[in-house]
């Protein structure tokens, strides 16, 4: 019997469950290795060589080299593990999160200062009809209310 996973019906969101964790085990363990300064240096010196030491899929390696965090998450990555790649690159958590939204770094930062992304239109898959990020922000929602 399939398990109940109601969280599949939340747009723009991947819940890191035991199934995702199974797919992403080596990708996430690779990320974990970047907590050691010497590993960060080796990774930066030659990413491909370093990645080839891990039992990751080719797709996972390509996603890491492209710094495509949405793709990494689709392949079983978890954001707290993937954050180690960002740390190695000198990126903040806000830069990493913003990079997954299709917004520019400035636009994302501005959205957060103005109260973040609104919950309206962002609860269910069917609310994202054309698969575009719902751009409704709390600042816009407040304006509409007035």
């Amino acid at each position, binding site marked *: 019997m399939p398990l109940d996973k*109601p*969280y599949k019906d*939340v*747009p*723009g*969101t*991947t*819940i*890191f*469950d*035991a199934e995702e*964790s199974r797919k992403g*085990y080596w990708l*996430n*363990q690779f*990320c*974990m290795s*970047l*907590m050691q*300064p010497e590993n*960060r240096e080796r990774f930066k010196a030659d990413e491909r060589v370093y990645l080839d030491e891990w039992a990751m899929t080719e797709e996972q390696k390509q996603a890491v080299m492209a710094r495509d*965090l*949405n793709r990494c*998450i689709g392949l079983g990555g*978890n*954001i*707290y*593990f993937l*954050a*180690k790649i*960002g*740390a*190695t690159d000198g990126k*903040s*958590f*806000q830069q*990493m*999160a*913003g990079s*997954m*939204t*299709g917004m520019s770094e400035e636009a*994302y930062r501005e*959205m*957060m*200062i103005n*109260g*973040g*992304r*609104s*919950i309206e239109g*962002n*609860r*269910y898959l069917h609310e994202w009809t054309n698969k575009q*990020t*719902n751009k409704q922000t*709390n600042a816009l929602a407040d304006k509409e209310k007035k």
Partner: protein
Amino acid sequence: MARITASVYTSHVPAIGAAMDLGKTQEPYWQPLFAGYEYSRQWLRDNMPDVVFLVYNDHANAFSLDFIPTFALGTTSHYPVADEGWGPRPVPDAEGHAELAAHIAQSVIQEDFDLTLVNRMPIDHGFTVPLSLMCGQPPADDFRWPFKVIPFAVNVVQYPVPSGRRCFQIGQAIRRAIESYDEDINVHIWGTGGMTHQLQGPRAGLINREWDKRFMDRLIADPSDLAQMPHIEYVREAGSEGIEMVMWLIARGAMADVAGGPAPVVKHRFYHVPASNTAVGHLILEEAK
């Protein structure tokens, strides 16, 4: 006998720690947030505990995917600050109360809560940011936190995470354990994490002020009802990382009113958006004297 005198709730956003470490607390972006903790620092000085039982989650620092404990109790006497990839934060390591931790392990496990006991556990921002917010930066000539700690790490990274109901129950068991400890010491229990935030995917940046406000209202007034909230509501309404708020229910479950005593007094309540990607919530509940 040991007694719990207060519970404290706060977000543990890593950027808050970075702002303190880089001397940015007076910048316009950060000033309103730190202003919200000025009262708390004075309150803590006036109500200094001997031990803080600190509920938090590890963010892939102490625990990789090799071991994923649902409830991990720190039972050692020294907790080093983790290097999360940016280098360790320049804050003191924490000193553990190993005797009380052993007592809690003995008591809580015998009440059927199957804890994992951990004797090697570097502490990440989930632990150090609440300490920094509540204590400020300790002076260089007395570089230590002003109380001992017992870390309680909850898995909220890999689903399924424990339910709010289970967290609330375990808080009650922790209260019974602490209250049966013979030494006369003052213990606080802190619940950390949240509030609404989502750090991943195209929906990142979600903030739900109304939901956060209601969560705090219900946590104060009717926590046993709040504890029934299913995971999916946290995920949908508060963001994929908003699920951290189940940890607040552990601290709340340890308050006297849940065991039939008087309701706690709300000493402080604060809410601010944003800290980086996250809504910051903070409460201090003191036991009625």
